[in-house]
């Protein structure tokens, strides 16, 4: 038999679990209360009986058996709640409020017993009450029994137990209905999310979960889901764009390569010309295609993995210093002033190799576009947000505001840079590396226009703070 849906929800199961725990605690409390109240009543009665017994034994020691007898008669008249029985040495009743002792053993140390007494209630019915009693042998051999009716105590305890049972039932009922209500509430919150998941499963990547603004865990989940879908949608769009771009970026050099080989082959067939030059050019073309292909592959693998492989904790300034050392002579050779500024004691978690490549790509670009007499600056610092920022600022022509978003996309090269070498994948790879580290790439204007120079470009690779 399948349970109704509500009984299968996690909140309901949790409710039942908590109810079981709470129920056990309530049972333990009940047991404690029982012991505390019922036990306490018995103890109090026993104390009173003992005190009465001491008082009567004291009277015997002072004035003999007649004084005791006298006391019993007086006390019976004063309607004390005690039950008495005084017997002589031969266990014959001398006086008292009960006929015979419930204790069968008459010699030896004082003996306690529980028994019941018969009483007549206000309606004239005969009722039995529970009672406690103590029997002692007096120094003269007479036997004295003092008891008390504990009927009222017992009734009090029974009331408490009854009340606790009621409370227990109430706990179960309230707990269960609370669980059902909570399950309904949570199920309603989940339903929206489940709907989105179903929609996406059916191919609607534009579906988004509603964020109610309550900032609870459901909102967090909805936000996370939406962010994930954003990324997925972007990635899908990226793949589609990549398909077109690969077709464009690989097809044209391959076409050129094919044409070159075909021409060379025809020339050889016609017996004219030396194919060496054509072959050398064909090799160069092939290398270009392979480079583009390698970059596309790296980007695709990074994006597919969604995270940088083998992340390690390291000092970002150390990596920057390493890369500076590699590029500084190149800048000097080109007549570019190279400066570096690194903050100390920073930490970043990431794949050193990929980050090195990203920095190298940024610097490659900067060197490529900065004219002689210009300057390049590499900085590493911690932002006030705690993020780690690598930035490269150059004094080249920069990238117009409206194109900045586009240059980090795959394969984009701006019109005016067509004649520069490079597959146009440099910054796309940097962006992919940044994203794989949970960071981002930011492009800004450089130091501004100074004479022929500038306005320059500032490329910032921003990584999240190391946890």
């Amino acid at each position, binding site marked *: 038999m399948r349970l109704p849906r509500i009984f299968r929800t996690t909140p309901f199961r949790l409710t039942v679990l908590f109810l079981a725990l709470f129920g056990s605690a309530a049972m333990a409390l009940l047991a404690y209360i029982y012991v505390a109240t019922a036990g306490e009543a018995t103890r109090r009665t026993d104390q009173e009986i003992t005190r009465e017994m001491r008082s009567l034994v004291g009277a015997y020691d002072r004035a003999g058996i007649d004084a005791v007898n006298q006391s019993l008669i007086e006390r019976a008249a004063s309607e004390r709640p005690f039950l008495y029985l005084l017997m002589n040495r031969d266990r014959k009743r001398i006086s008292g409020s009960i006929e015979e002792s419930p204790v069968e053993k008459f010699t030896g140390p004082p003996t306690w017993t529980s028994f019941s007494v018969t009483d007549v209630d206000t309606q004239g019915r005969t009722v039995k009450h529970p009672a406690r009693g103590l029997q002692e042998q007096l120094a003269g051999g007479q036997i004295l029994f003092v008891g008390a009716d504990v009927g009222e105590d017992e009734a009090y305890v029974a009331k408490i137990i009854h009340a606790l049972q009621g409370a227990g039932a109430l706990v179960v009922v309230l707990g269960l209905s609370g669980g059902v209500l909570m399950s309904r509430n949570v199920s309603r919150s989940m339903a929206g999310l489940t709907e989105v998941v179903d929609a996406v499963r059916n191919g609607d990547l534009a579906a988004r979960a509603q964020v109610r603004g309550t900032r609870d865990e459901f909102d967090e989940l909805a936000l996370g889901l939406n962010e994930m879908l954003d990324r997925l949608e972007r990635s899908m769009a990226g793949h589609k764009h990549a398909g077109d771009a690969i077709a464009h970026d690989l097809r044209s050099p391959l076409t050129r390569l094919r044409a070159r080989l075909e021409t060379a082959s025809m020339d050889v067939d016609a017996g004219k010309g030396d194919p060496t030059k054509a072959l050398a050019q064909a090799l160069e073309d092939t*290398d270009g295609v*392979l*480079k583009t292909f*390698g970059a596309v*592959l*790296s980007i695709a*693998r990074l994006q597919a993995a969604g995270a940088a*492989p*083998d992340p390690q904790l390291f000092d970002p300034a150390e990596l920057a210093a*390493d890369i500076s*050392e*590699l*590029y500084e*002579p*190149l800048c000097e*050779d080109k007549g570019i002033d190279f400066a570096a500024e690194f903050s100390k004691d920073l930490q970043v978690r990431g*794949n050193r*190799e*990929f980050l*090195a*490549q990203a920095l*190298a*790509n940024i610097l*490659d670009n900067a*060197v*490529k576009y900065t004219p002689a007499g210009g300057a390049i600056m590499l900085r590493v610092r911690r932002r006030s947000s705690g993020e780690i920022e690598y930035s490269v600022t150059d004094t080249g022509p920069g990238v117009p505001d409206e194109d900045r978003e586009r240059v980090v996309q795959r394969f984009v090269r701006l019109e005016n840079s067509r004649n520069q*070498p*490079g597959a146009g994948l*440099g910054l796309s790879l940097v962006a992919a590396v940044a994203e794989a580290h949970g960071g981002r790439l930011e492009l800004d204007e450089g130091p501004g226009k100074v004479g022929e120079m500038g306005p320059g470009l500032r490329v910032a690779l921003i990584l999240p703070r190391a946890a």
Partner: protein
Amino acid sequence: MRILIVEDDLEAAEAMDRGLTETGHTCTRAADGELGLTAARDGEFDVMIVDRMMPKLDGVQLIETIRREGDQTPVLFLSALGEVTDRVAGLQAGGDDYLVKPYAFAELIARVEALARRRETGSVQTLLRVGELEMDLIGRTVHRQGKEIDLQPREFQLLEFMMRHAGQSVTRTMLLEKVWEYHFDPQTNVIDVHISRLRSKIDKGFDRPMLQTVRGAGYRLDG
């Protein structure tokens, strides 16, 4: 040098064989991992070139097997898988170098020769000598014709690598990998600039240049 080529792509193996034979080496070919294992067990080789992905027994398993059997012949892995993790896996299996397909032939030759050389100079040296050039690895000093040459730490490492592979072509990629320990292709000529700085220090003012540029391949230090 005796070279074992274990490669299931017969055309690629043929091209390698031809190229290596032309440069004066003797090649033995095996078309899959099992044949490669038999050949490696039977013959004596200076270097093995092993494709990573092959039918029957793949390159990594093959090298793990011969390494377990105590064979220390230097191994160059060839692979279409070029990611950091792939390379690390290849080197952990017992490979000595890793070349990603497709490769320039000059790169392959340079690496094969570098591997064979490494074996010859396996013992710990404290002094390197190439022609007039002397490098004290403990004192971290370099002299040419008795004249001390002042080098930056990286220039020292670069020269050390060139001296350990004197007479051989070393490619830019090899230098970036072995001296800087980076495994990517820079789009600019960073390595050339470092080499030209080193060249101006060791060759300037001497009658004969030692650090040569090899067209289409890289650089070579001649004694």
